[in-house]
């Protein structure tokens, strides 16, 4: 047998061949280029077109970016320097304007010896926001988050320390009322009592008490007027206030819109649809020329505060619709399960409905945040000096008359960094909270 076999079959492989790399045309960079860039004539044309676009953009842009002047003190000097360095006929960016004015673009006309205050406020803001954004940050920082609105406002505007403390005490008193009345008389009575206590404190008691403290322990920062605020400081101030205020307000509006109570529902729907139906600029007109008409004669409060209120209301209406989407997307069984457990309305919302509804609406919430932050540029139309308003102010200086691209580019880049990181954070959050099995 073995003899015949040996005669008929000349060669039998008794070991496996080692695995070979796939041919170059099926794997590796060449294959990748083939399937992704040059698959078919249409694909090839698109690739070549894209390459052409990229090439010409870079050819136009890179020399302009690089052949630039950083040291000049006026636009004409900039041009002269660039011609001197890179030869006749070259045009380049005049980054000197950014170098000279970047502090103004960031702080506006805030007194330069007080720059540490907004800077400190910004650093503290990061620490105050961190425990909300990231789980690994120590929980103790949440105390900073609670007092930050008052601390930040004090740092920015200055003045006596007792005013923000007084305003904060209103919330403390309201909280204490809920704690003490709540155990004896039930939640609703406690809530009403807390609101009454806080309002009485703010309207009638706070003023004299603050004055008393101010006289006995004068502890104050140099006050800074709102007119001096500007630049990215102003954008961030308005943006952060609107973002922080619009989420709770938006949740309440969304709950109101979903509620069975007819009057509450119609009020919420009316508010939301009205705000969403008009452009932000008309609300800013209201803030700049009309809000004082609707307030008691003689009141004249800060333009920045008025703008912040209007932008917050505007953002809240959009937020309400986003949250309502999340509420509507939640299966009805969740509501029924909460009822079956015997939870009352607020407990059910807090423990079961809201955590899920907010998780669903994260992308919408963050894109509303980004939209609000971008919309803070609109305040330049009513004459506040946000970065865009400042760019006009800088151009009205004879030394920099005619500088356009450098300023717009810088402002656009800053906004891009802020907004892009916000959208990336929302993606991170979505992944972190992803518990489904899809």
């Amino acid at each position: 047998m073995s003899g015949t076999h040996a005669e008929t079959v000349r060669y039998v492989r008794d070991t496996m061949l080692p695995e070979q790399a796939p041919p170059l045309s099926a794997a590796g960079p060449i294959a990748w280029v083939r399937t992704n860039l040059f698959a078919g004539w249409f694909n090839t044309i698109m690739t070549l077109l894209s390459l052409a676009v990229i090439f010409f953009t870079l050819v136009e842009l890179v020399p302009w970016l690089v052949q630039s002047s950083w040291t000049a003190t006026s636009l004409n000097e900039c041009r002269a320097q660039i011609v001197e360095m890179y030869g006749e006929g070259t045009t380049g960016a005049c980054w000197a304007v950014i170098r000279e004015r970047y502090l103004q673009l960031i702080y506006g006309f805030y007194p330069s010896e007080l720059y540490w205050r907004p800077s400190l406020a910004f650093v503290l803001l990061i620490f105050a926001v961190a425990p909300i954004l990231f789980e690994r940050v120590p929980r103790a920082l949440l105390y900073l988050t609670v007092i930050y609105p008052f601390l930040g406002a004090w740092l920015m505007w200055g003045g006596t320390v007792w005013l923000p403390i007084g305003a904060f005490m209103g919330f403390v008193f309201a909280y204490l009322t809920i704690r003490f009345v709540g155990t004896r008389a039930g939640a609703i009575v406690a809530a009403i009592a807390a609101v009454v206590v806080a309002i009485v404190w703010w309207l009638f008691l706070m003023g004299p008490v603050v004055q008393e403290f101010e006289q006995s322990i004068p502890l104050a920062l140099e006050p800074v007027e709102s007119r001096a605020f500007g630049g990215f400081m102003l954008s961030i101030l308005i943006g952060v206030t609107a973002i922080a205020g619009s989420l709770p307000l938006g949740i309440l509006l969304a709950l109101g819109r979903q509620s069975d109570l007819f009057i509450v529902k119609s009020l919420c729907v009316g508010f939301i649809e009205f705000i969403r139906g008009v452009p932000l600029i008309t609300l800013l007109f209201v803030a700049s020329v009309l809000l004082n008409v609707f307030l008691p004669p003689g009141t004249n409060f800060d333009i920045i505060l008025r703008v912040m209120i209007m932008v917050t209301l505007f953002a809240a209406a959009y937020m309400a619709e986003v949250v309502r989407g999340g509420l509507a997307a939640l299966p009805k069984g969740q509501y029924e399960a909460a009822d079956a457990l015997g939870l009352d309305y607020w407990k059910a919302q807090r423990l079961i409905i809201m955590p899920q509804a907010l998780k669903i609406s994260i992308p919408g919430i963050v894109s509303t945040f980004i939209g609000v932050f971008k919309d803070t540029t609109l305040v330049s139309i009513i004459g506040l000096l946000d970065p865009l308003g400042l760019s006009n102010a800088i151009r009205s200086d004879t030394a920099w008359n005619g500088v356009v691209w450098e300023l717009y580019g810088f402002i656009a880049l800053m906004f891009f960094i802020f907004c892009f990181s916000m959208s990336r954070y929302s993606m991170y959050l979505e992944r972190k909270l992803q518990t489904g099995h899809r």
Partner: protein
Amino acid sequence: MTIVTDPPKESFRLGMLIYDSRYRSLTIQAVALIGFMLLAAWLISNAAQNLAALGKPIGFDYLADPAGYDINQRLIEYTSRSTHLRAAFVGLLNTLLVAVLGCALATVLGVIIGVLRLSRNWIVSRLMAIYVEAFRNVPVLLWIVFFMAVLIETLPSPRAFRGDDPTASMLLNDTVAITNRGVYIPEPLFTRSLGDISVFGAFGISIDLLVLLAVLAAGLWAAHRVAVRADAIQEATGDRPTTWWQRLLLIVGPVLVTLIALGFHLGYSELKGFNFQGGIHLRNSLIALWLALSLYTAAFIAEIVRSGILAVSHGQTEAAYALGLSPNRTMNLVILPQAMRVIIPPLISQYLNLTKNSSLAIAVGYMDITGTLGGITMNQTGRELESVLLLMLVYLAISLSISAVMNWYNNRVKLVER
């Protein structure tokens, strides 16, 4: 014996308004209503006091006064002697003009970019991603002023078109001039024009335009009938007659005949003196606003289109192929209708956003309704309350009508579930 047992009569106690869930909702609503009415009364009384102190009565008669300012980009007749009301109306038409132009361009660009972003071609999809991120993460106001700067700074001035050896030349066989003062395009003229009809004696509408629109509508309706008939034949016999050329002829033919009958020709703009004369002058402000709004909104529409296409599961395509549908008909009959259901509602809310963002025209001096009624009229007359109120009402009316269309469409295409 029947024993009638009445439920024990509860006497009503005041505490039940809070603790009894039957009455609690009434209490809450009553409190909310009273609170709202108190707030409104407070605001109104403050406003009344303040306005009385300023000596400003509330009234809209100022709208009938002559406006006294010029509007350079307008669709209807307007002079500085016209009334404020007419100025506001010119502004409203300008708002609608830029909104319609913007929505059209943004849709086209958005669909193309959204589809290309899904392309298997790596470079193309990256490029489109960069476009989308760049436009979405930078404020639209910045884009508007940026485009305005591009138009003013980079385009040739009309002077560059003059002389024996001009540095700039008109495009498309000397019909379109792109200058830093705006774009000049030919205007349609009719030698046998039918004239204008006057609406309420306020402004004229060209009868030629109305006739053309009517003929176009009739053509579209006839083409639709042909398609319906083709559908019926296909239902009955399984064969679909080829009708595309009939439909094309029905749409294009009558319009062409009408144009010839009316003596249609183009009026070109020419360089006279320091500027171009004749033709239609699209100002820089309009072009900058239009481009910025369209490109900005297109980035959002691209994302909507992309998610809409991704939302249709691949099983639908496979099922359609299994039924023997061609790729074209699969796209038209299976994929698109389902993708549209996802795409349309956010798309219309983008149209709404674009319309509302057009109010930023004031930053580049385009006279839309915010620029006329909320800008010059308000500043000249000092009637802030009335002007802002009217302005809000106008935008609210536009928004609500677009929303109404959206709701109608949503109801029409809603999935009827079990």
